[in-house]
């Protein structure tokens, strides 16, 4: 397996009138070609911001990237997405990396037919003429499971149901066969049965096209079924990264453990939300000086208030930002 994306020390702030929001504090992770990486964390932890910043989709100002790099590999050659020019970025978006947004209703242009919105990037990146693009768009609609694709091509977004809009959104993101697709909570706004269908669709498409997927969610239940590896984020920090089974069996960060124990059993119909841990996330108006989870952590000790923990390796492909060795039930003795 080869690395397709390598993010290092990504630090991003929003300079707003009320002060500086430290949205991302040194995010580092790799994505391997062909895998599915899930990013989980509660609302506001910076999942969307992380991925959007890679494609320059955040409004700047107020957003400003303080440091870091994001190497995107094409045939083994890295290019830094963060330093890319506007024109180069236009060639990456859609063609190399597709983006599926959370709320398909507001993410689709209300006055343009769904078909044209799919066809737009085909014309743009693949140089198709209008007729070929139309045929291709209909195929895509068909492929994402929209019945009567030929007629639906001419519809406007408001004529679609919620699930169909999300499928159309997927069709837009995969239209040019990008190597990587970012799915930003594509199922949150849908009801449970439709959610399952969309997850199935995404899995199928990934299998068929061999795409790399970054799947953002706050639903750990979905993660188990879809991801190869998981990145857990808390208040703009990457607190743990691990292969999915390892994460479920041996969570190494108190936050992850809290999340997992808050997971309801299958027969429980309440919402599987991350917010069920005691306390509230910190405000992000200051640069972190210590572990951001310390306020809520049951294992907190003096060291946690003194420094931001570095990544500690905790098994194969498993790392965590915590001074406490959960496995052995004692503070880590440092190397």
């Amino acid at each position, binding site marked *: 397996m080869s690395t397709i994306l390598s993010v290092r020390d990504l630090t991003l702030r929003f*300079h*707003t*009138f*009320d002060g500086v929001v430290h949205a991302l504090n040194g995010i580092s992770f790799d994505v391997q070609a062909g895998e599915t990486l899930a990013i989980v964390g509660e609302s506001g932890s910076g999942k969307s911001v992380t991925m959007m910043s890679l494609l320059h989709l955040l409004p700047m*100002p*107020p957003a400003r990237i303080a440091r870091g790099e994001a190497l995107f590999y094409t045939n083994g050659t890295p290019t830094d997405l963060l330093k890319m020019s506007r024109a180069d970025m236009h060639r990456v978006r859609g063609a190399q990396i597709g983006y599926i947004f959370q709320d398909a209703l507001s993410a689709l242009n209300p006055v343009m037919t769904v078909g044209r919105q799919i066809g737009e990037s085909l014309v743009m990146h693949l140089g198709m003429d209008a007729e070929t693009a139309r045929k291709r768009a209909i195929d895509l609609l068909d492929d994402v499971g929209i019945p009567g694709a030929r007629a639906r091509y001419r519809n406007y977004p408001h004529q679609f149901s919620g699930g169909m809009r999300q499928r159309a959104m997927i069709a837009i993101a995969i239209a040019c066969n990008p190597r990587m697709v970012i799915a930003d909570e594509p199922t949150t706004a849908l009801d449970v049965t439709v959610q399952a269908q969309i997850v199935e669709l995404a899995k199928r498409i990934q299998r068929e096209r061999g795409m790399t997927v970054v799947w953002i969610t706050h639903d750990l239940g979905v993660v188990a079924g879809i991801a190869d590896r998981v990145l857990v984020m808390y208040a703009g920090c990457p607190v743990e990264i691990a292969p999915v089974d390892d994460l479920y069996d041996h969570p190494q960060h108190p936050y992850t453990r809290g999340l997992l124990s808050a997971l309801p059993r299958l027969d429980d119909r309440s919402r599987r939300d991350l917010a069920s841990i005691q306390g509230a996330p910190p405000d992000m108006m200051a640069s972190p000086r210590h572990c951001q989870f310390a306020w809520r952590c049951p294992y907190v000790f003096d060291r946690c208030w003194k420094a931001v923990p570095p990544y500690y390796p905790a098994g194969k492909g498993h790392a965590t930002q915590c001074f406490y060795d959960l496995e052995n039930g004692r503070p880590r003795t440092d190397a």
Partner: protein
Amino acid sequence: MPETSADATGLLVDETPDRTFRQSLVYVGRLFWRDKTGLVGLIMFLMVVFSAIFAPWIAPYDPLQQDLRAAKTPPAWTEKGSFDHPLGTDNLGRDILSRIIYGSRVSLTVGFFGVLIACSLGLTIGLISGYVGGRTDNIIMGGVNLILSLPYLVFVVFIAAILGRSLLIVILIFAFTDIPIFVRITRGEVLRIRESGFVEAALSIGAKRRRIIFRHILPNLIGPLITIATFEMSAMIFYEAGLGFLGLSVPPSVPSWGNMLAVGRKYLTIYPWIATIPGLAIVFTGLAMNLLGDWLRDVIDPRLRRVKK
């Protein structure tokens, strides 16, 4: 019809946290300082108010005093002008500067009382409309929409021509034709608060309706109303001058900016300053109020406040 103008400004504010009066004052001062255009507008407006109040003391001449020997003197900065009459004199030798200073009284009176009446009536009717709802609401809103879809200028001219020239009549015309705008804003706010389910909750714990109006609806309305009132006052000053220009506002003997324009127009090609200089006073006042209004809108709209300048 999609909502335009007044409502589209998005002026409805959420409840501001309680502040002491002094803190508010400091806060407002800081906001003025941040955006200097608001400050400039305020200063310009205060200058107009000042000249209206103290007209007899600052005007160099009696605005009605004719001096046929000095008639048609051009402004001081031209060749034939003199500093006896800095802005020149009109066809009857009346000092233009003095007439402009006195003219501000008419403009501000019309603007101030026009808006005051329109605002208080509009507020009352809007509260009734929003609270009582049902048929009353339908009838009131029918009237409001009717008036708002009339060609404003044509009707103002029409009514003014029928009712004749007097200050009171002019004020009343503007006041009554302006009520609908204030009705709409008030009603919108009442409905918004009602929809939030807050009123039912408050009523169910026994809060008096009057208390809800004074504690929750009016505080939210003050900001938007002040902003709208500023713009409406500026519009009324324009319309009053326009009516005067057509000879339909205050009697010709009263020095008002519109009347001055009407006189000057006849001499436009030979003695242009008689008409153009009073127009500058209108522009000055309009600029003052619009700068102030824009600033108020930015300050009061919480969405805009968050953007770092």
